[in-house]
């Protein structure tokens, strides 16, 4: 079972920071979230058949674009983090 973790607006809408999901890939995990989450959270995450454009999915601190996309395999110790890119109010600056 992997752990799904919500950050920022998704966490607020879901009312929960994390829970577990039995899924062998990121795609399976997202399908389950589509069934389980309240409509308000689904609106934040999904549009038409896929994810909203600004939703970022990470597996173990790596964006899935660098780990195999939706086919990224999941195991028991894996942590899938979901956030909305606009929530990341970071500076692009570099430390001095």
């Amino acid at each position, binding site marked *: *079972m*992997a*752990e799904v973790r919500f*950050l*920022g607006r998704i966490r607020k809408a879901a*009312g*929960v*920071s*994390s*829970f*577990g*999901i*039995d899924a062998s890939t990121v795609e399976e995990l997202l399908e389950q979230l589509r*069934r*389980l989450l309240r409509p308000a959270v689904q609106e934040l995450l999904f549009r038409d058949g896929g994810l909203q454009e600004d939703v970022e999915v*990470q597996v*173990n*601190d*790596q*964006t899935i674009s660098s780990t195999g996309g939706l086919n990224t395999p999941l195991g*028991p*110790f894996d*942590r899938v983090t979901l*956030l909305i890119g606009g*929530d*990341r*109010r*970071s*500076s*692009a*600056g*570099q*430390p*001095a």
Partner: protein
Amino acid sequence: MSRPHQVIIGASAAGLAAVEAIRQVDTACPITVVSKEPMPLYSRVGLTHFMTRDVGYDGMRMRDDAYFDRMKVRALMGVAALAVDSKERRVELSSGERLAYDRLLVASGSDAIIPPIPGTELRGIHPCMTNMDAKAIDDAVPRATEAAVIGAGLIGIQVVDAFARRGLRTTAIEMMPHLMPAMADQMSATMVEEDLRASGVRVFSGCRATEILGKDGHVSGVRVESGDVVPCQLLVLAAGVAPNLDFLDGADVTVERGLVVDARQRTSLDGIYAAGDVAETADLLTSERWVNAIWPEALNQGRVAGLNMAGVPTAYEGSLAMNVTAVLHNPIASIGLWNPQNGDYQVHAIRDDQTRAYRKLVFEGDQLVGAMLLGRYDDAGILHNMIRTRTMFSLRPHDLARGRVRWGNILRSIDRVGKV
């Protein structure tokens, strides 16, 4: 008559203590434990021991895989409580199930507070609350050369210690005037800070983090209010914890600093109990109400809640502040009223720079009510016992202030006086 269905939200110290208390009384009632963590049954106390590599991953475990079967518990792991309907007596779960209960224990623990500064969603930033967090941090250590920790309380200072011991260039950032503000006084915190600096750790105390900097979506540094920028590829947020009570937002239950409970751990809602980091209880020494989010009190409260849920009226005696840790192998402990804020107490304090030890004892009249120990603390258990039970075993304040106490001294003094 059918037995009540006992539902427990949370599978850490308080939740498991409740399971075991219920089973002492009732071996057959249905119990369901709900935990949002996929792999619970580990000790939070072990997290930083894992990060220092003093124990392996399995060293954090406190119960084996067969535990729930043995206890005849239906365990819903990785399942979060989303809402409680106290009229229908049901809990809405992230699995879609609406779980009916007769008695419900809220032992859902606390979540890390995410400080309101820009950049907290960058990659490479971790809280340190769960075994998954500890694993993620442990995995990230080899990829980093510099690490920072925002918040140098009990958890934060342990992470700083772990990073320093694993060879990372480490910086501690604490917005309060000194390190470990909730468990150390100015003197002991200053000594710890001196030791950390001497070992190469950079310390910003009395200094807020104002911005987290990033590169390509990954943390690269922290700007602090002095204007300094702390470079880091790994950042831990340890800025405090808050009771995990979001799922009770719609329930008409009394919440102050935490869920308000009476001496039997009952909340304001019939049939709902609370224990551990979510529960606001009375302090044993001052009777003031607060959330004393420490492991031993979670065990005590969970046990009391479980007995009451099983129909055995049992009172919780009140919580006692107590924190113990070690920084750079030097132990530090604070117990009871270790930092009194008024003049009604007598304080005896000794600092020994040679051994990097500090011993401060606080008395109310002739009774020991608080202790702050840095360095040699092998009588901490005796002092804790004296404070909790409000006994002095015929010893006088002067005897304790002189130095460490051993049970042998106590037994001799009892023998001399002829009483306990």
